[in-house]
């Protein structure tokens, strides 16, 4: 039962509960109009303590598409937070007006604090470098919809695998499904943290391979998930110059990729995917953003316990 629950960590929900959300998300994606009155009379509060365009728009669009309404703030200076109000007081007040709340906060664990004091469901829309569970749901719905399954996939994760929270969450989430293998493409300084390797991959006997170049593994991949490598993450300039082009996806690198491989990216993109790739039919990152809205629609409906109408 998802009604009344919070979503703070992508692992808060069981595989079955995630399945429930993804199934509804898929249904919505096929016929969004059918759900245009599902949340009529309901209010979503967006508490954004740090700026975000994509996630906030996605949540707001999701609620508006469901026929609900949205209140909130997009930066703390325009709210009572600027006067020093605590998270506990803000959420207790908001809960008097809204039916469900979304919170983004620069401090890790802030959504958990909000949930502790909230009578309405709280959704974590990103807390510092910690968790971003609706991005994970977005990735899962995109993969499920475009590949038709969440198991038996070769998943290439490319770029900054050390600091990228979306990558860590995706590995955890996809590790719960059978026969997935991971090809981890990054400079050695930016490899997946030890705890992910030990606690998630090795512990569950999941096949993985660490390589430095996309070209080394691209022909094996069903999914290529790109993230950005920042220059300042490298320890030395020489290493950066040696490897920087390895993490920029262009048409030449796609030459040996499978015809039905999909390219994903949590966005915003800077230069890690060349613009020429946008025209390739395997480029699905903008579609992924759309699935993000559909999965948020499904999540809102499930947490509110509203029926399809």
């Amino acid at each position, binding site marked *: 039962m998802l009604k009344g629950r919070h979503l703070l960590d992508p692992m808060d929900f069981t595989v079955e509960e995630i399945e429930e959300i993804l199934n509804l998300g898929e249904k919505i994606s096929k016929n969004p109009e059918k759900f245009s009155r599902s949340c009529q009379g309901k209010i979503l509060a967006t508490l954004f303590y740090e700026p975000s365009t994509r996630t906030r728009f996605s949540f707001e669009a999701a609620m508006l598409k469901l026929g609900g309404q949205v209140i909130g703030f997009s930066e703390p200076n325009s709210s009572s937070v600027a006067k020093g109000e*605590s*998270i*506990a007081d803000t959420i207790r007040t908001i809960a008097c007006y809204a039916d469900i709340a979304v919170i983004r*906060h*620069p*401090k*890790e*664990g*802030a959504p*958990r*604090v909000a949930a*502790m004091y909230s009578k309405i469901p709280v959704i974590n829309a990103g*807390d*510092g*470098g*910690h968790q971003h569970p609706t991005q994970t749901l977005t990735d899962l719905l995109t993969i499920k919809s475009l590949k038709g399954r969440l198991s038996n996939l070769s998943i290439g994760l490319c770029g900054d695998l050390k600091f990228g929270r979306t990558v860590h969450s995706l590995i955890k989430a996809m590790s719960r499904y059978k026969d997935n293998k991971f090809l981890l493409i990054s400079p050695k300084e930016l490899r997946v943290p030890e*705890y992910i390797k030990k606690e998630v991959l090795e512990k569950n006997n999941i096949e993985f391979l660490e390589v430095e170049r996309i070209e080394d593994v691209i022909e094996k991949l069903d999914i290529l998930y790109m993230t950005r490598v920042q220059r300042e993450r490298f320890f030395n300039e020489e290493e950066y110059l040696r490897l920087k082009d390895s993490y920029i996806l262009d048409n030449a690198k796609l030459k040996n990729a499978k015809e039905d491989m999909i390219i994903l990216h949590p966005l915003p993109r800077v230069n890690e995917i060349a613009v020429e790739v946008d025209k390739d039919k395997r480029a699905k990152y903008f579609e992924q953003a759309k699935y993000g809205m559909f999965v948020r629609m499904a999540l809102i409906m499930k947490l509110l316990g509203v029926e399809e109408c």
Partner: protein
Amino acid sequence: MLTVNSIKNGIVIDHIKAGLGIKIFKILELDKINSAVCLLMNVESKKLGKKDIIKIENVVDIDFTILGIIDPNITINVIKDEVIVEKKKLKLPEKVENILRCKNPRCVTSIEKYIDQVFYLVDSKKGEYRCMYCDEIYALSEV
């Protein structure tokens, strides 16, 4: 030399590292119980050089698990008719509230001061705890 009589029935918390006795006294809220309590500080010890001891008259219902966090070498003896009838072994508690403090500057506990500091045990062998809010993992010696 200061001498304190042995107790007939009760609990003796022994081998407390010198200086930690007062901390344990406060954490266990021994000032709030009705029994007679004695805190001995800087007692000579063959094993530790100096140690603290707490004696509580009559066996009272106290949860000692928290002491594992403070000093795992502490021994707890239950005395009946002047004989030790039970030696309680200390284990690290699964959950610790408001004893450890998260040091992660990005953690919400650094700004919302009213919330409880909560940690969960992740590895009892290594003595590692995880902050409930930011998931940062610490060895006990760090926090």
